[in-house]
């Protein structure tokens, strides 16, 4: 099978990878870039565990994206979410409010929530519901997940306000 060399930009790092036309972004991120935080579930767009962020910050189901179309386009995966020595506010809230159980769905949920908040820092209930609808979680019943998302929003709004008042 002919493979084409592409440059994948994952969490700011550039990787030259040979990809076959049928290979998905998920396959390449996991098998070639060797970042396995992005989980493989149904591989058919039905569960959300493979969610990453594309260049515009939008949530992308990496199991449905063909890798070959991602030449030179930046991708953010779960490994690129936390700061150097601090978790992202969404991750912090998930930890503190008990929204992680088995963890198999967790990377997908974090990416989904982060994508939502990057686009809309103060989403209403309906927007949260819509964003999370495609991310399945069998363990938590989604209850603490929603609490964590709301708490993360509060924390991020408070952080932004604090930064503003410092005049930076």
């Amino acid at each position: 099978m002919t493979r084409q060399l592409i440059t994948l930009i994952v969490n700011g790092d550039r990787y030259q990878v040979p990809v076959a036309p049928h290979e998905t972004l998920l396959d390449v991120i996991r098998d070639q870039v060797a970042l396995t935080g992005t989980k493989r579930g149904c591989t058919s767009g039905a569960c959300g565990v493979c969610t990453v962020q594309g260049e515009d910050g939008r949530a992308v189901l990496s199991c449905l994206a063909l890798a070959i179309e991602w030449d030179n386009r930046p991708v953010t995966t779960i490994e690129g979410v936390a700061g150097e020595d601090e978790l992202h506010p969404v991750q912090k809230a998930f930890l503190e409010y008990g929204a992680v159980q088995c963890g198999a769905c967790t990377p997908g949920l974090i990416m989904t929530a982060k994508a939502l908040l990057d686009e809309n820092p103060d989403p209403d209930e309906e927007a949260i519901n819509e964003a999370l609808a495609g991310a399945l979680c069998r363990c938590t019943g989604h209850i603490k997940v929603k609490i964590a998302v709301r708490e993360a929003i509060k924390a991020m709004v408070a952080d932004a306000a604090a930064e503003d008042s410092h005049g930076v």
Partner: protein
Amino acid sequence: MASRKADLAVVGRDQPRLDGAHKLTGRSLFTDDVVLPGMLHAKIVRSPHARARILSIDTSAALALPGVKAVITHADAPKLYVGIEQPLFRQEIVNYIGDEVAAVAALDEATAAEAAALIKVEYEPLPALFTIQDATRPDAFLIHAKAKGNIAWQQAQDLGDVEQGFAGSAHVRTDTYTTNASHNCYAEFHVAIADWSLPDKLSMYTPTQTAILFQKSLAGALRLSDGQVRIMNLNTGGGFTGRTSVRPHHDVAAVLSRKTGRPVKVRATADEEFIACRAGGEVKYTFRTGVSDTGQIKAFEADITFDTGAYVESQMIVLTLTSSYIHSLYKIEASRYSGRLVHTNNIPYYFHHGGGLAQMAFGLGQHMDALARELGMDPIDFHLQNGVTKGHTSMTGTFFGSCGLAECIRKTAKQAGWKRKYGKLPPLKGIGIGVGAMASGAKGVFKHDTSAAFIKIVDDGSMSLFVGLPDMGQSSHTAMAMIAAEVLGAQATDITVISGDTDIVPLDVGALIQRGTFNTGNAVKAAALDARKQLEVLAAARLGVKPSQLVFRDRQVYPKGQPDKAIPLKKIVYDTLHSREGRFVMGRGFYNSPKESGTMAYSFGAQIAEVTIDPDTGFVTVDRIVASHDVGRAINPRIVEGQIDGQVFSGLSQVLYEQTLLENGQVMNPSRLDYRLPRSYEMPKVEHIIVESIDPFGPFGAKEVGEGPIVCTLPAVANAVANALGEPVNEMPITPWKILQILGRRAKARAGS
């Protein structure tokens, strides 16, 4: 003596899970993330027929495909059985759509899939049996010659004088219920990586709730000794009672690895998850209860028939569980049980979340509710009158050393506003209660059901706790660290929990039937006490007091009442080792319930659900759940809430949504788009009330919360629907279609009158 809350420094406080940051940053390893050198990928060839004779298998084209390393069929593993009656590959007759016929290992998954498609199997289709009714007809053919009448297994039990109990009853009520086939929908799919490249050691990575049962059953099937099998369970992406025994794919990976001399990975595809791994089959229940005119239960009878599908493996446990359930909930003096597993040509039955009990509770809870209504009694009063209490010993020999059932019922009713609402809601709005009990610390897998633990403390004060109990998400490892930290005066974050490798960790029967916190928790407590004893020698001498007067708390050691004299725990550890004796601190402990079999304790609960029915769509919205659970002691309260949430979700999902649709043995909805679970926006508000009855035998009084809440959710929601509709729906799931049929029938009757 049970400790008071104020005496506890760690237990009873919210502790974020210790592996949380790893899971949140993508650093947690699951089996699917593991790549071993030279690893091959396997695919399984499955029967497309529900029952057929295999005429020929031609593997030549598959073997000729470049990249294919091995193909195996029955000839490669003629004596290999999964469980008791399922040969790894069929030789002659296939028994369900999905039955294993062959498997192939290749350099990559795509090649393996291509090769699997090249294996030509010729079949002669045969008639098949798809329902309990058909399979139990006197003239039905036998699916397995040994199972006469297609009854794979049966169990009957008579306790007390049942006839007299019914004869002396003022009212007797009989109801029948059905629950349908279902699936667990784990976030992590079924997967195994076997490395059997050296003949005397098989290593297997796989998610499991019980590494030891996997080890024993693989060793037995493959003719190895237990020590020659090493199970590595990394993170397990959900258990739900379904990951408690070896499945065909585990053996397939092992046999292919043996044959190729390379590690082999098998991972279920999205549809294989549904086709090869059913988590519950059709079950038919008949309940008959006799009561006095004041509502006292006099006699109870249950008759339960399970469609166990093509094979039984360890499903017979469900008969034992359901046979004694009633005695853990109500005080009953006469009961009869008859249960059976019936073979059909459907997918083999395994466990769905709630282990057969939650599904039974769907009917049982509705039956008791209906009985109370018939007597003109409030169901709350009925449960309070008949429910077990502390100090009671049941007919099955269980002693209830703690029992918060009545407290749960009262608190839930109060918070939900039951008295204000029950019987007073407008049409199509309903309220219902579900009560339940669940074993904590059950015994019966082996003669012992031991859990063991080691702890080592190194000279910087950091500790490693070794346990065999897996963490499938229930946060058991964090709870174990908290228990050890409490005993040693440390913080949970000082402790690294080491688990998931049978070559390293001590024995543990595993995380099943709600036994982890109770059994492993007691073992961890014993190990920590053992380590503490070793530290007390030096601490007592330094502080000039007896060891019994020492307090270990907040990383300090001091004489009782004199925190100003505290010596840092770290220093005590350091000096214990760095002495002429060089004493290295290592604690060990184990726990095996002193009972012959059965359970040391039960957790209890009550939930009240409120629902609204949409008359146009038949859709049931659950508006609110108030959940009250007696967990003995909440080791980690927020995590306890999370356990309740997850089970409320799973319970209401089972009652209202979930069904594996089978047509002539074929799964019609083998995808997560078509097999519906509630989405996040469909979840109600869940209010938690944690009741702490402080069990005399549990670690710090703890019992369990891992599986108890779900047995309350199913009846609570079902009863709320019955309350809203004015009549019960006796078949699960209660789909919008069933409700529309009822509403339509009524509309017709009205129009006709």
